[in-house]
C-alpha cells in the first residue's frame, strides 16, 4: 500500500500526522514528509482516517 500526496493541495494542516504519525511528518518548514514508501497493511485504518480528515483532500491511497 502506498500513499499519494498532491503537494499542490497540501497546506500543512497536519491532521494526517495526528491520525497516523507512523507515516506522516509535517516538517519545521511546513513541508510534508512521507516516512514509508511501502506502508504495512496494519496501518490501513489509520491511513484511511488521514485521507478522510485531510481538509484539502490532498491524500490518496494506492493499493
Amino acid at each position: 500500500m502506498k500513499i499519494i500526496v498532491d503537494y499542490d493541495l497540501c497546506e500543512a494542516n497536519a491532521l494526517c500526522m495526528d491520525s497516523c504519525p507512523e507515516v506522516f511528518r509535517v516538517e519545521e518548514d511546513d513541508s510534508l514528509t512521507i516516512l514509508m514508501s511501502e506502508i504495512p497493511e496494519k496501518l490501513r485504518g489509520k491511513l484511511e482516517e488521514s485521507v478522510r480528515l485531510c481538509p484539502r483532500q490532498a491524500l490518496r491511497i494506492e493499493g
Partner: protein
Amino acid sequence: MARVNLLDPETLANPYPLYAELRREAPAVQVDPNGMWAVTRFADVVEVLRRVDDFSSEPADDDREKLFENAFGGANIIGSDNPRHDRLRSIMQKRFTPRRLGHLQGRVEDLSRELLASLASDGEFDLVPTYTVPLPVVVIAELLGVEANRVDDFKRWSNALVAIVNSAEGAERQSALAEVGELAKYLSAAAERRRQDPAEDLIGALVAAEKEPGRISAGEVLSYCILLLAAGNETTTNLIGGMISALIDNPDQLALLRDDPSLIPNAVEEGLRYCSPVQGLFRRVLQDTQLNGVTIPAGSRVWVCYASANRDPERFQDPDRFDIKRDCRGHVAFGWGLHFCLGSNLARREARVAISALLPLLCESNFSQAVEWLPSWVIRGPKALVLRKAA
C-alpha cells in the same frame, strides 16, 4: 413542502428547525431568496464540495458577488474555479499554516487581556463591541499591514459587504455599495504604498507576486485584500460570540472547560460545528446536474449549507447538543476540499485564545445573556451579546 424563504424572520432567528425539514425532504430543494437549490445533508454537501467540475464557484453575471469582481477589477479565491483558484491561493498558501501563525500567539493573548481589562465592571456588558469584534479585526489588520486603529471603519465596511451578499435591496444596498467603494479606495492606496515601499506583511506579499508575469493582477490584489480583511474578522467574531453564547446556555459544558482548559481546542471545533459562523456558500451548475437522484437545472444557484450538514444526525449523534467532548472532526464549518478556508488556522488560534482568556470571567459568576442574532442567512452570530451577572 411549500417553497420556503430563508429570509423569514422566524428562520433568521433560528434556522435549524428548517434545515432539519429540508434534510428530510430531498438531497436538493429549491428555496428563496432567488430560487436557489439548498443542499443540506452532510453526505450531499461533501459530494457537492468534491465535484468541483460540476459545481462551479464562479458567480454568474447577475450574482451579487459579480458586483464585487467588476468593482474591484478582479476575482477572489472564493469566486474562482481552477486554474485561477490555485494561481491565487498559492500566493498565500504558506502564510496561514499552523506553524507560521505560531508567532501570533503572544500578541493575541496580550490583545485579549487588554480588551477584557477595559470591560465595564458594573456586572453588565455587551461582549460584541468590546471583545468579539475588535480582537479579530486588530489581528487581521496587523497581518495585512493596515492601521489597526481604524477598527470602526473596517467593521463598517465589512458589514456593508455582508449586507450585499445578504441580498440587501434599495437604499440599504445603495449605501452598502458606497461603503464598499470607500473600502476599495482605502485598500488600493495601501497596496500602492507597498508597491513603492515593499513590506513583509500580507499586502506586501500580494504586490510582490505582481512582479511574476501572469501571477496576479492589480484588481485581483485589491479583491484579495478585501476578502482577507472581511473574512478575517466577520467569521471569527461570530465564532467567538456564538461559542460564548453556547457556553452560557450550557453551564455543564462551561464547568467542564473550567475544570480542564485542555479541552479548549476541541471545544472550539465543537463551537465551529455547532455555530457554523458561515452557514453556507454558493455554487452554480452550468448544465443539468444530478445530485443523488435530484436534477438541478442548468444555470441554477446552489446553496451549500454547512450549518445543516454539521447538524445532520446521520453524521453527528444528537447533533443539536453542544458537547465539547465529542469527536467532531470532519465538520464542514470551514468548507471542505479545494476551497477549504484559507484562514482556518488563524480562526482556530484566535478563538482558542479568546475563550481561554475569557474563561475566568465567565466562571466568576452566574451570567444570564441577552442575544440578538445578525439578521443574515449567510453569516450567523451575535450582533449583541449582553451578559448580566445574576443577582
